[in-house]
């Protein structure tokens, strides 16, 4: 099932070009059960690891690991494998195409990192004096808005 969602973007103070974001639910079927399990385990291990680092070395060092790219190698490798599998089904070699897809994914992640800085700044500045749930919601929205805006700007 493919759903097209059109998000408008105002890039230069006026209604600029439309940036299309597609949603493709059928891609969920491409991910195998062991890949879902791998993500769950990676996520759990990284979260525990971040907690252990904070306990042993204090919050200043522990906080660094809240932005550690531990999941990234696994997810980028999955993107390469999915692309290769798709091409193999058509009788083609998708090795280079898979690696380029992973490269594009990494470029997108770089933009997400800038938004991650925004998320962390909101938490750092607002947490000591405001309701934590409200701050976390605002920080998450900040990440989402910054990430989309940066992506839309980059797409031009």
């Amino acid at each position, binding site marked *: 099932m493919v759903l097209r969602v059109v998000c408008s973007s105002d890039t230069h103070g006026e209604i600029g070009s439309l940036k299309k*974001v597609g949603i*493709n639910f059928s891609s969920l079927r491409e991910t195998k059960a062991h890949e879902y399990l791998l993500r769950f385990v990676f*996520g759990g291990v990284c979260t525990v690891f971040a907690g252990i680092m904070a306990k042993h070395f204090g*919050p200043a060092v522990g906080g660094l690991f809240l932005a550690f790219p531990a999941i990234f*190698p696994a997810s980028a490798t999955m993107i390469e494998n999915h692309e290769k599998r798709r091409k193999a089904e058509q009788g083609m070699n998708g090795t280079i195409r898979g*690696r380029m897809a992973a490269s594009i994914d990494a470029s997108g992640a*770089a933009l997400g990192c800038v938004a991650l800085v925004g998320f962390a700044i909101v938490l750092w500045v607002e947490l*000591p004096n405001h309701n934590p749930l409200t701050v976390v919601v605002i920080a*998450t929205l900040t990440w989402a808005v910054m990430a989309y805006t940066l992506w839309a700007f980059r797409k031009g």
Partner: protein
Amino acid sequence: MTEMVVRFVIGGIVVSLFSLVADVFRPKSFAGLFGAAPSIALATVGLTIHHEGQDYAAVEARSMILGAIAFLAYAVSVSWILRRYKPPTLIATMIAIPVWFFASFVLLTLMVRSVH
């Protein structure tokens, strides 16, 4: 021990959810944004506030800014290595990990020096 189990389960669920969202979005450059979603931070911030308080969580968040800048350097490096040399993705993503460690600890050292 119970806290570690809770962390593991919450972390696994949050990271899996963000990965699911990334799977369904197109184009790939947009889906890639979710590779740097605040999944681990969201999984831990509630527990950290509950056990250590809001000020402690704010100090972690200050360091997270530096970790995110280091992640940016890492992601740019991975993208460049893959485009330039076209190695297997797992190798590119693993050999760039020292970029994150180097950048984050240099930034942390600079921050500590500027504070004192």
